[in-house]
């Protein structure tokens, strides 16, 4: 009965109702996007960090992993020190450097980012085809490297680390066998990447990189609190800064705080717009039907019934708009994510907007609450009408 009356009231002014639903839909879409944005970055970053199960990153003192070209010296001594802790079950040392591929199939030299890794650990990438990094000369590359160089699995690559302009000769020249193709988790989406044995890259880079690494990744035994191991690393090896997932997320919050604040502000504005729109429309609708409501009260319809009917009317507008808005929100989130995906250096696996059912429920809940609140003021006004005076005024009018 109440639903029928509410529906009749909405259908009575179709243009107005359609505009209200459209307004709530856009507000709901923006709210969903902002809820996804506020939690998406953290979720995405957490997933990315834990993709290979390494809970700790160990970088040069005071820096974040690969935030600068700073490296950690005496890497083998640090590995020995870390192995003293039985809670650390795997260590992946990584060195980053730039290399140049000479005489590529594509005809031009290719400059690529190189990762020196321990092939047995495979912490930075996932092998898609071929075999692992290994020996002294087996390397794997990503699709961007293969596309730029035209190289194929099985090819021998002529790679150099640099050029000495005084001697007019290449430095750190090696012939590497391209053993496999891999997907790298932490490098930029369209960046050419080559992974090769750590010792080979250290030797190619010369004395400045001897026994040095850019970072270590460490896997902690199940059931052990990573933050406890992080504190141990900070104490045991003062030359480095250890970063657990929780401390890395704090850094992300600090650096990307702008987006979260923007999400909260715009989410708040969306809620306010939806609330005001529904309040205004229901208030006007009640004002137009003031005579009707007075008649209903005069024939014995209770105040509670009138209140419920008007609240249901506001709620119906809100729910209709919100359902439409959630669908629009998912589409706009994809568009916005593709825009932000062009950030330079951003890994392909990182997303700003991550859809979670929780986000959709949160948006729906917030808007439904706003819709109920929006109906309360006009409902209170309608329920507290002086019946006789209203009927007389309406009759005279």
């Amino acid at each position, binding site marked *: 009965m109440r639903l029928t009356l509410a529906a009749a009231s909405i259908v009575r002014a179709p243009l107005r109702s359609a*505009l209200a639903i459209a*307004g709530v839909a856009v507000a709901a879409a923006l709210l969903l996007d902002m809820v996804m944005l506020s939690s998406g970055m953290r979720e995405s970053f957490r997933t990315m960090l834990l993709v290979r199960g390494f809970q700790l990153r160990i970088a040069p*003192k005071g820096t974040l992993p690969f935030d600068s*070209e*700073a490296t950690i010296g005496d890497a083998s001594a640090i590995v020995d020190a870390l192995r003293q802790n039985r809670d650390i079950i795997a260590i992946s040392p990584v060195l980053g450097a730039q290399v140049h591929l000479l005489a590529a199939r594509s005809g031009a030299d290719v400059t690529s980012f190189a990762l020196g890794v321990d092939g047995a650990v495979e912490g930075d990438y996932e092998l898609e085809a071929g075999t692992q990094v290994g020996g002294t000369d087996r390397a794997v590359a990503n699709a961007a490297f293969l596309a730029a160089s035209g190289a194929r699995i099985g090819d021998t690559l002529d790679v150099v680390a640099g050029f000495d302009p005084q001697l007019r000769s290449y430095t750190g020249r090696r012939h590497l066998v391209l053993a496999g193709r891999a997907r790298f988790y*932490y490098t930029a989406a369209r960046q050419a990447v080559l992974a090769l044995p750590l010792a080979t890259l250290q030797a190619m880079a010369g004395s400045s990189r001897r026994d040095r690494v850019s970072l270590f990744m460490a896997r902690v035994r199940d059931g052990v609190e990573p933050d406890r191991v992080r504190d141990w690393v900070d104490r045991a090896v003062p*030359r480095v800064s250890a970063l657990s997932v929780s401390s890395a997320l704090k850094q992300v919050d600090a650096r990307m705080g702008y987006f979260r604040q923007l999400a909260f502000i715009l989410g708040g504005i969306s809620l306010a*717009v939806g609330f005001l729109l529904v309040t205004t429309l229901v208030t006007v609708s009640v004002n137009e039907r003031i005579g009707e409501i007075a008649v209903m009260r005069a024939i014995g319809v209770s105040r509670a019934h009138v209140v419920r009917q008007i609240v249901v009317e506001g709620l119906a507008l809100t729910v209709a708009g919100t359902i439409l808005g959630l669908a629009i929100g998912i589409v706009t989130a994809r568009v916005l994510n593709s825009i932000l995906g062009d950030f330079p*250096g951003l890994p392909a696996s990182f997303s700003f907007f991550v859809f979670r059912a929780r986000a959709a429920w949160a948006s729906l809940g917030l808007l439904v609450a706003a819709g109920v609140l929006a109906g309360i003021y006009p409902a209170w006004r309608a329920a507290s009408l002086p019946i006789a005076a209203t009927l007389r005024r309406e009759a005279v009018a």
Partner: protein
Amino acid sequence: MHAVIGRLALLALLSAAPAAHGQDRGRDSVRDSVRDSVRDSVRDSAGVSTRAAAAAAAIPIAIDQQMAEDAGLRIGDHVALASEPGAVGDSAVIVAITTQAADPSEVARREYRIRLHLADLQTRVGYGDRVDRFAIATRRPADDTGVIRRVDDAAFGFRAWPSADIAVRTSQTFRVVSRFHRAIGGITIVASAIFLLCILLLKVEERRRDVAALRLMGISRRSVVTSVVLEAGLIALVGSALGTIVGWIGSLVINWHYRGVYRTPLAFSIVTPGIVALAVGLSLVLGLGAGLIAALRLVRVPPLTLLGR
């Protein structure tokens, strides 16, 4: 003081080393700092030559204001400077405190910067006779292409870029943020347009009895429509003026907040005449459109029906 030493060691390291791992932005900014360290330290240390001379063997360095504030350092203070955390390091004297430039690329990095003579930095980080880049001024900008070609042809491992290209590459982050803001702006414009349209339609609908009375008095449909449209336009104009004031105040609050958060003189929000014109123009068009639609709907209905008879 140990914390300060450690931090300085890190900074020397950061200044010396361009970023890797695809961090183009980081690499460029660090290279900027290397170049700036040469230029600025020469300039700054010249300005306080008396103090620098007094410091004798200590390395003259300039630190930024944030570092001075956080570490409680002042001009003339001596600190230890090392390229490795925990190393003993060399004595350095602060000869200048620099203010942070309004550079958007450095906003989120929150790094301290120290500047020192190129030779001092090369010695301390074992960089040899190497630099990350040279900045070259040409006599005639028109010759840039030829100069770039000659530098590129000189040897493998060199690459010359026009400053404008570097500016484009390093501003990629901000172009992305700008596109994101435009997209969000588009959504909010649609939301506010619907809201405005709805409110103005309701406002005009409320006048149904006035319109009926005017029509019964013999006022023409055209005059009624014109008056309703003008009223809607006026409301939109007054609303836009108020909205502009609110937006301007909001912009001041945003700048105050983010300048404090990021400790930068950058302007994060600017209300330009173009933005005001867009907002006022849009609301005026929507107001007039809504008024016209509602007025035409009203004048088509017989006056007695409008009165509910």
